[in-house]
């Protein structure tokens, strides 16, 4: 009886081993993914717009992202607009609208290694706090460096200096943080 039981159990195990095949998982669209950031700068004195971008089509893993820098004119003021996309979707999903809908929970911050390059907010959420999807960028003397664009989710917008664009006390968690090289000529 003992032997039979052992044999039966062993046989069951073998049957299970060969019979089952794990079902294919559903490869769904990744929600909430941001693959692309485009920062379009239009000179107020006229001329062609410049687009700075950070593109990482396959998300966190896989291939390295593509970063496109740009050349700006010295002592110029640009109208800046930010666009966020999920290009894994066809057509690409516009994440900018998601941010705009939850503008009270989001804020962009701009920092540059070029000291006289500044970015000012030109938009507001319902509470009168800045968001940063629209802004103006002002260049000073010629220099080479980079601009860091950060998007914080659930920052403390009322904390000291956060509304003027100082990230120090903002807190929250980072949804975007990209560093794009720029050249001011």
């Amino acid at each position, binding site marked *: 009886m*003992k032997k039979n*039981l*052992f044999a039966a*159990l*062993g046989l*069951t*195990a073998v049957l*299970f*081993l060969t019979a*089952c*095949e*794990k*079902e*294919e*998982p*559903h*490869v*769904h*669209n*990744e*929600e*909430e993914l*941001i*693959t*692309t*950031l485009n920062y379009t700068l239009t000179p107020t004195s006229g001329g062609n717009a410049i687009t700075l971008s*950070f593109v*990482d*089509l*396959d*998300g*966190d*893993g*896989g*291939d*390295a*992202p593509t970063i496109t820098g740009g050349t700006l004119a010295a002592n110029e003021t640009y109208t800046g607009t930010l666009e966020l996309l999920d290009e*894994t979707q066809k057509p690409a999903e516009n994440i900018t609208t*998601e*941010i705009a*809908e*939850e503008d009270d929970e989001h804020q962009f911050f701009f920092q540059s290694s070029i000291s006289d390059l500044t970015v000012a907010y030109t938009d507001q959420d319902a509470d009168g706090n800045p968001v940063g999807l629209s802004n103006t960028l002002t260049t000073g003397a010629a220099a080479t460096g980079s601009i860091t664009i*950060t998007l*914080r*989710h*659930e920052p*403390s917008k009322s904390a000291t200096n956060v509304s003027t664009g100082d990230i120090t006390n903002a*807190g*929250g*968690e*980072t*949804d*975007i*943080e*990209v560093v794009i090289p720029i050249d001011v000529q």
Partner: protein
Amino acid sequence: MFNKKLLLLFIFSLIFFESSAQDCTLSIRGQVFDEVSKMPLSFVTLSVQQSTRNRMANDKGYFYLDSLCVGEYQLSCTYLGYQSKIISLDIRQDTFINIQLTPTSIALKTVVVEAKKEAFVGQSTTSIDRKNIEDNSNKNLSGLLENETGVYSIKNGSGISKPIVHGLYGNRLTILNNGIAQSGQQWGNDHSPEIDPFAADKIILLKGASTVEYDGGNLGSVILVEPSRIQRYVGLRGQVNYLLETNGLGHNLNARLQQYSPFIAWRISGTLKKYGDKNTPDYFLNNTGLEQASLAVQLEKSWKNKLFIDFYASTFNTRLGVLRGSHIGNLTDLKQALTNQVPFFTEPNFSYQIEAPKQHVSHHLVKIKTKYFLKKNQLLELVVAGQLNDRKEFDVRRSGRIDIPALSLLQYTFNSELKYTNRWGQNWKIKLGMQNAITDNTNDAETGLLPLIPDYIQWKNGLFGTLSKTVKKIHFNLGVRYDYTYQKVVAISTTLPREIVRYNNPFHTFSSMAAIEIALAKTQAISFNTGYATRNPAINELYSSGLHQGVSGIEEGNIHLKIEKAFKNTLEYKWFPTANFSVSALAYHQYFEDYIYLNPQPELRLTIRGAFPVFEYQQTDAHIYGLDLSTQFAIGKSISGVLKYSYLRGHDIANKQPLIFMPPNRLFGSLKYAHQKNIKIAKATYLQQIEFELTNRFIFEQKNLLPEQDFAAAPPAYTLFGLKASAAIHIKKYKISCFVKIDNLFNVRYRDYLNRQRYFSDEMGRNITLGLIFKL
């Protein structure tokens, strides 16, 4: 006197010889002695375990328990200044026994029930008894074990913790709930074992080199969480516990009810918990609440003492909040958090609210065990069990996705086991068995994210055999085990276009052990245990891919991992020279070849969310070694104390550096005063078992770490004091035990190296627990 006793025994045997086995009219009679002085002990309390229908021995130490049915019993004897003793008895007729009680001062470890000890010959065992479980029913499994030598807790905040034994945890530590290897997402350091310890009567920790009888990737230690058999005592019995904690305003309610009848025996245990935000000495830990509801049902039936069928079903459901301030984005956020004294999102108000980030976890178990005696000395056991583990983790997400989990895993496990035991000749015992476990793990696509670990089915088939023998003062035990594991994995590629990638992995693993225990003299014992075991890489080690939000690191599996091999030796020495003093020392060394660990990669990974450190599973050769020391002493009958020290080192041989995430050394001490007399507070109302206990836990700084191995240096050493006062009120036939316990008495600010949230916040401040235990 001796003749009188013999005569009594003879008379009892005659009187009850005729009694029917079906009726519950059997009795146990006996006499209780002091083990050391051999003098009778008067007025010892005896009960068939957990019954409140206690009987007291008379002034000559004689006792009498009646109305018992045929079957297995656990007789418990308690007497102040002596260790409580539980004796397993198989009652078929009226029985007379002599019981010897050991004065409290002799090592706790010897309390392990005889029948168990046999199975663990040469294994160092530590057990947590029912009283300890009842008094700490607000704690989780890890919390119950953390003051034992060689054990530490890995925490993720205050509510989530898992045990680490001799430096091994997660995939390397086997936890058996009711004899079934706990299945679920054990790989996650922020995943607590889904077990309610209140349903158990005993938690046994085996710290040996290898325990071949249990399935799981065990390279040494095993934790057994076990309910006892239902006592064959007619009548309904039960217990209700209520505990209130000040830190987190936590309510904890446990209840247990059981009854035996010759037809069927049943027991129900349940727990309800609700906690709000905990607090450090200075601020609230927002979103660290906890809710838990669990229930266990146990049924036992036997036929003619030959066939025993036990049914066990349990459901465990919990919602755990994770500190909001620990949910961060990239490395910049982490660096910012490290400079903050108070975590972000800290609010001035207490709340029971649990919001994202949070975990919703359910674990259900159904088990049927059949025990059949082929002959008196031959036993066949068949166990069939199913488990369902449902884990959902919620992160802070955009656009109303906060209600959609970021991780959603469903795991079914089917376990079966067949064991054959034979005892023959002069104390020979052989045990043979086979075990099968089928695990089916599926990600729910609802998350809208790439899964952290892939879908898979795993089959594991194991065969084992153990042989043991006792020759006078020497026990030896040998064991071998072989497992065949087959993993069928279906992963989604990390590169575009997304594709389905299938992996089929067969693994052969093997383990063996040998143990010997020698009683050197009446007061000394030494045991040596050696074991070699191999473990196949787990799914997460092979294929995990993604971001761990809590430490803002990307974890990458490694499909080239090989089988991990480990060789462990333990040597234990016990010395109990007098009734008031005992010492135990356990030294262990474990050598690993191809030790699997998370290695931080030199380059950061650039993503649109910023830079992240990358950790990849790699293999190295390593040593883990340490020493567990413990001593117990008693001064007079009222004062007793314990001192425990655990030392551990982990070393990466190949890279010539320390192993990360190893427990720091620690010291635990407790001093207890037990008031010898009962205090009468009213008519037929007494205050009994009055005890005061002062405890101290000192955790050394983990200095065995290089600065480049972590984001922040290990926290400094800390010391915590605790105080407990307890008493039992006897009102007529009812007994209510109550206690007040203060943890972190001096409200110390501290952080712990093995708490993953140490980057973000301090640990809990002072906590006062009020407990009431009512037994029916």
